[in-house]
């Protein structure tokens, strides 16, 4: 956004063009920046590998991948729809509470004698309903999603305690808990991560290869322009909140089976790590930008850092929170600084006068503008 301020003359033209084809010209430059962001995350993963191996010779092992990824299963699952929500310039902070409510509902229904095969879809539906509640408040009443989902963060968690109280249910059938805790068919990849991978592909296709995905970017980049160009902004947002809730409901089932414990208090605080993963993955907190690939890389990085720190005999667990927090700030600050640097440079080059541009389709627009 800030670069629009410096080049105000082309502002209306740019946004009109953006609204028309769903991809603002700025988006091409944005894509390049994102690619660089992903390279940066990949580089950090490499650094983590080196540092992790220095911390413990056990770091670069399949064991680390298995256990490290298993711990992040639910956060990884919830990060996928949250990425879409944030690309649409909204936020859903209630996901961890939906997860808790789902776990509580699961415990309640299990006590009522229902089979897991039936409970799981019900929990996903309950999650979807929670999401719909968020979505309706945001789209129909026009409330800011930050306020709404902070409210429902408390509301859904409270409901979870109403459903099951302080009890915890631990007598789930072992074939299901083993499945949630175990690895996929003799590999070192946990079943939950296989589930994540399938959903990640689905969400990547949805966001990057469908008209719906394009419209999410349009809504996030400029809601008004998206509306004027005929997109059903409210319906798109509502769909995203429902998706977010449903996946959080699924995550509630996964975490309950994985830990053989369903209770109202599971997953407290997961929303922060999930938001951190999404933003670290290059999804702009202001909407309109982001890739599922970036989010997957960010999850790998977070998982790697957590693993490295827990493998150390001498580093306290508090450092995991510190490092996660620092990365979150860094991931918001980083692109901002890059943007400012770029602005400063374009100012400088403009005052010097433009050098003769090579001919190419990409260069066409700036040339026209300079003239």
């Amino acid at each position, binding site marked *: 956004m800030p670069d629009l301020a410096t080049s105000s003359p082309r502002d209306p033209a740019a946004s009109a063009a953006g609204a028309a084809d769903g991809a603002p010209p700025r988006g*091409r*430059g944005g*894509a*390049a*920046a994102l*690619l*660089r962001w*992903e*390279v940066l995350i*990949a*580089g950090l*993963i*490499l650094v983590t*590998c080196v540092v992790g*191996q220095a911390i*413990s*010779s*056990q770091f*670069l*092992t*399949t*064991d680390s*991948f298995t*256990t*490290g990824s298993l*711990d992040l299963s639910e956060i990884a699952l919830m990060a996928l729809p949250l990425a879409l929500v944030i690309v649409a310039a909204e936020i859903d902070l209630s996901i961890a509470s939906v997860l808790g409510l789902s776990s509580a509902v699961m415990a309640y229904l299990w006590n009522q004698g229902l089979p897991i095969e039936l409970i799981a879809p019900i929990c996903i539906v309950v999650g979807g309903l929670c999401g719909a509640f968020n979505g309706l408040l945001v789209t129909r009443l026009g409330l800011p999603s930050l306020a709404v989902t902070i409210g429902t963060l408390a509301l859904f968690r409270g409901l979870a305690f109403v459903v099951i*109280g*302080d009890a*915890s249910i*631990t007598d789930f059938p072992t074939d299901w*808990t*083993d499945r949630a*805790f175990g690895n996929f068919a003799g590999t070192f990849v946990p079943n939950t991560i296989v589930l994540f991978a399938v959903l990640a592909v689905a969400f990547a296709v949805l966001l990057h290869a469908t008209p719906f995905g394009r419209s999410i970017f349009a809504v996030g980049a400029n809601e008004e322009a998206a509306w004027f160009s005929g997109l059903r902004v409210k319906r798109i947002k509502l769909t995203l909140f429902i998706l977010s809730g449903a996946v959080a409901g699924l995550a509630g089932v996964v*975490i309950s089976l*994985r*830990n*053989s*414990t369903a*209770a109202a*208090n*599971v997953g*407290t*605080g997961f929303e922060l790590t999930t938001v951190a993963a999404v933003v670290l993955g290059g999804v702009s907190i202001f909407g309109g930008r982001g890739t599922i690939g970036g989010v997957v890389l960010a999850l790998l990085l977070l998982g790697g850092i*957590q*693993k490295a720190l*827990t*493998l150390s*005999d*001498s580093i*306290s*667990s*508090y450092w995991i*929170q510190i490092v996660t927090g620092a990365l979150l700030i860094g991931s918001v600050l980083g692109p901002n600084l890059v943007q400012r640097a*770029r602005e400063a*440079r*374009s100012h400088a080059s403009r005052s010097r006068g433009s050098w003769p*541009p090579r001919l190419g389709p*990409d*260069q066409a627009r*700036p040339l026209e503008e300079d003239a």
Partner: protein
Amino acid sequence: MRKSRTPRGPAAVGSALVLTLAVAACGSTKNDSSTSSGSGGASTSASADTGKANPNAPYKKGMKVVQIPKQLGNPYEDIEDNGTKKAVEEVGGTFVRKGPTDAGASTQVPIIQSSTQTKPDAIVIAGNDPDAVAPALKQAAARGIKVVAQDSDVAPDARKVFINQASSEEIGRDEVRLLGQQIGYKGQIAILSATANATNQNTWIKFMKDELTKPKYKDMKLVKVAYGDDDDQKSFQQTQGLIQAYPKLAGIISPTTVGIAAAGRYLSKSPQKGKIKLTGLGTPNQMRKFVKDGTVEAFELWNPADVGYLGGYATAALVSGQITGAEGETFKAGHLGTRKIGANGEVILGPPTRFNKANIDKFDF
């Protein structure tokens, strides 16, 4: 803008390259480390996995023990773990302590898993949730790591030995007896516990409820079990809530050191100070000022350092093959003398000590 466009192609290639490198790096080291883990694991566990106990076996040299408390920053756990450390070091072992930052049901799991990877001889754990940690502990056991639960039990098939502070039944019943004496066996009472899933607290509460069914306590009524999650602020608020919700409350039992200290802090500043009796399990250092200012008449506890110390020796005996965790086996426990394993692999430290104005200054923990 111009400059940002040009590196697009190279950037894509670069990112792919870096990723391939990262994956390759992860992939290539996997093989040699897994072979080394195979041999290393076998040599460390061979001596101890022979099945039969040999009471006279020497302590294993260079024993490495990982201690996993319920959470970091809990003074009770700190004292207890120092006891374990002392015992482990007395028999020449090395001690590492790793804990989660909060006492959630599953927060210990990643730590157990990472500890398993570093192949210690034993893991000593105070479980936050008996079942959530069980699969990870069983994985550790499958790799020849001895698992000892201390203070708060885990699922019995996930550990060899459980170090119990005192018989759970005795603690539960004695708390009710203590409060009964203070309130003249009459009035509404409440319990302020730790987390809703905490194994030890729940067992004690079960026996408290059972004790209350005796005719002697017919005029005492348990109105509420509140959960402060072993969080000071939350326990403080729960105390406040209890007193507002039940104006006629006569007494509170808080069978957790965090809870009783928070409740004491609230009561000492409230008009109900001394009127609502507070008892439970606390450390003398935390409770000293509340006992002296009259907020609390008496409370009790075992010596947590001794719980840890006993756990440390049980662990050493287990690792060295002196015991297998079967009922009736005995082992030496330093200054605590010889101890015997009871039913279900439980070792009991002994009856709790009561602290009051008269004796509290004799204790410093």
